[in-house]
């Protein structure tokens, strides 16, 4: 890939996770920014609050991610002016999908996880690929550590098999504190084995009372 002279992307590493609960949503991402084998900064947030009940976490090429977050924030502000209310999470989910597909032939190198509360106040998580294919799920992980984290979440969050009929609701029965504990443990494990994940973990919890932010230290090696 890098033999061609026209490769314009780079992967800045990092991992994002989101878990939906009955009346809360947890969105978390590490804060390490890297390029190649070097660390650029240990203190970079991958999380963007787009609306009061809607939070986006993205990993991949930070140049494209900054542009994407800026684009979506601007669109949300326009929506507020036109409709006199903030965008709901499912509405933002559709907007993000359309924004990504708009650049289908020169994509945003961004792997996104959108989390928040839907119009009924239940937790929702939307997971995306780089060109806008999306799905509402109960939990998701994206980024360099996603392959290490997803199997653990699949096992612990009692996700009903997608092959079962009738289709079952994916929201986890865990309490908010249990979900946060799981996220911390799963990131500590991913940090052990993925060189691009580490330094600090930023956890954002959204519930009907509002948004809460927490930081915990991860391995710095």
């Amino acid at each position, binding site marked *: 890939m890098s033999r061609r002279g026209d490769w314009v992307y780079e992967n800045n590493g990092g991992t994002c996770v989101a878990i939906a609960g009955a009346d809360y949503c947890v969105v978390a991402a590490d804060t390490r920014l*890297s390029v190649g*084998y070097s660390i650029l900064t240990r203190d970079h947030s991958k999380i963007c609050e787009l609306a009061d009940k809607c939070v986006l976490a993205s990993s991949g090429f930070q140049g494209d991610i900054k542009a994407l977050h800026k684009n979506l924030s601007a669109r949300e502000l326009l929506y507020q002016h036109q409709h006199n209310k903030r965008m709901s999470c499912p509405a933002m989910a559709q907007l993000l999908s359309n924004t990504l597909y708009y650049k289908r032939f020169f994509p945003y190198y961004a792997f996104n996880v959108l989390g928040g509360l839907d119009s009924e106040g239940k937790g929702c998580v939307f997971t995306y690929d780089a060109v806008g294919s999306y799905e509402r799920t109960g939990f998701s992980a994206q980024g360099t550590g996603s392959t290490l984290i997803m199997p653990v979440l699949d096992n612990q969050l009692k996700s009903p098999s997608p092959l079962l009929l009738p289709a079952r609701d994916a929201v986890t029965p865990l309490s908010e504190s249990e979900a946060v*504990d799981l996220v911390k*443990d799963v990131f500590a494990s991913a940090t052990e084995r993925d*060189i691009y994940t580490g330094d600090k973990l930023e956890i954002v919890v959204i519930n009907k009372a509002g948004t809460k932010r927490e930081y915990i230290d*991860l391995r*710095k090696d």
Partner: protein
Amino acid sequence: MAGAMDLPAKGGFSFDLCRRNAMLAEKGLKMPGFRKTGTTIVGLVFQDGVVLGADTRATEGPIVADKNCEKIHFMAPNIYCCGAGTAADTEAVTDMVSSQLQLHRYATGRESRVVTALTLLKSHLFSYQGHVSAALVLGGVDVTGPHLHTVYPHGSTDTLPFATMGSGSLAAMSVFESKYKEGLTREEGIQLVSDAICAGIFNDLGSGSNVDVCVITKGKTEYLRNHQLPNPRTYVSSKGYSFTKGQTEVLSTKITQLKPKVEVTESDAMEE
């Protein structure tokens, strides 16, 4: 084709499959990766001998394959060697030269010299034209005094007062260039080596986990495995995990007996 396969392999590399591999790679087949050690390895000469240091992370691409591997290899009681590059290559080449040195000690009746190990390593690596991907920091103390050398995969060597190799070598060298001076004491030497390895551990993504140190002086070698452990696990869930039956969804079950059941009946013991 009858006689072609009969000759036993003479050893060394066989390049027979290279053309096939190139054809497959062109068709889009991904070649399997080698495990490289990522790595920060260092060595320095102090007033009484040499100090070697290494991190303990082994990587397979972006994944940590071993969190606490040993990169300081035994060559002789008075000579140790740190290895960076492909893990299998560093292990194999140091084991091989270590055996050769032992046979040489029996033949000569003397303690091994560092230049002997150096010559054996460099001639082996040169003859493989860089295909044996081993980058080494060789250090020891013999009758001629303390010695420190670097050995590169193509077979070139340098003789230096302080040296670093591996992906974290720049981070470690920046520490050495700032703080190294001649005539360091044992404690200063160990501290400087640890600082250099820590620089690699925290600033290079290919290096991590713990610091191994080896101090070689006239008549005594101390291998300080895990001299520093600056990276404990940050969070352990107090809730723990249980993997009960039924937690993973079973979609269907089918049991096939491997052998038909055999009936065992009481019978007389066999006659001798």
